[in-house]
């Protein structure tokens, strides 16, 4: 089963959580990214995500492999929504399980950071005032900028 899902509908996070449970793991860390009502000072009414699914899934699997290698976690899952989302909707869900909490926290942080940098997923924001626009966050570790991305 793929550990990475590009979902067109809201996801049942309880099912995701249960799928990760295993007796050897005492730590479960989850990150949810939600659609926020403002971005860079503009009021957001909603947004559309689109993904290049095949590459997003293979690159996401690579990121999870890296997290397993680096931090020794037991397992992880990543779900990213596509389609039209409203303020408050969950855009991304990342869950990590490991024997202890420290590696779960660190791996979860690593996965969300790399997902934002590397997955071929695009976001078009709609504003209360003015024209919608594609948000350009990053282009991978090679793009040379290091400003902090909020959200």
């Amino acid at each position, binding site marked *: 089963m793929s550990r990475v899902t590009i979902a067109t509908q809201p996801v049942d996070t309880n099912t995701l959580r249960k799928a990760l449970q295993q007796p050897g793991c005492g730590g479960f860390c989850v990150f949810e990214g939600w659609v926020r009502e403002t971005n860079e000072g503009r009021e957001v009414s909603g947004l559309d995500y689109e993904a290049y699914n095949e*590459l997003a899934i293979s690159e996401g699997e690579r990121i999870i492999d890296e997290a397993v290698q680096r931090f020794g976690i037991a397992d992880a899952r990543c779900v990213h929504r596509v389609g039209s989302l409203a303020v408050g909707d969950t855009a991304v869900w990342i869950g990590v399980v490991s024997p202890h909490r420290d590696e779960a926290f660190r791996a979860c942080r690593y996965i969300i950071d790399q997902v934002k940098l590397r997955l071929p997923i695009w976001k078009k924001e709609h504003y209360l005032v003015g024209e919608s626009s594609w948000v350009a966050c990053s282009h991978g570790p090679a793009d040379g900028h290091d400003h902090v991305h909020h959200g």
Partner: protein
Amino acid sequence: MTSVTVEYYAQLREQAGQGRESVSSNADSLASLYAELRQRHGFRLDTAQLKVAVNAQFRDWQQPFAEGDVIVFIPPVAGG
């Protein structure tokens, strides 16, 4: 001539007015193929702002492409 399928996402899809097209080209690299398509569709992004994937694998711009390849030009991403 080499025939390939090109897929477009996000602003490239909007600027091309389509999500995919069949393209026949004599271009000898992915960079020169993009230059041809940029001229045809008026894409505003240049190769320094894009990545390119062939058959769902990232590739270097200077590499050639082959008959039947599926090529995707990847604008700056914004997941999460």
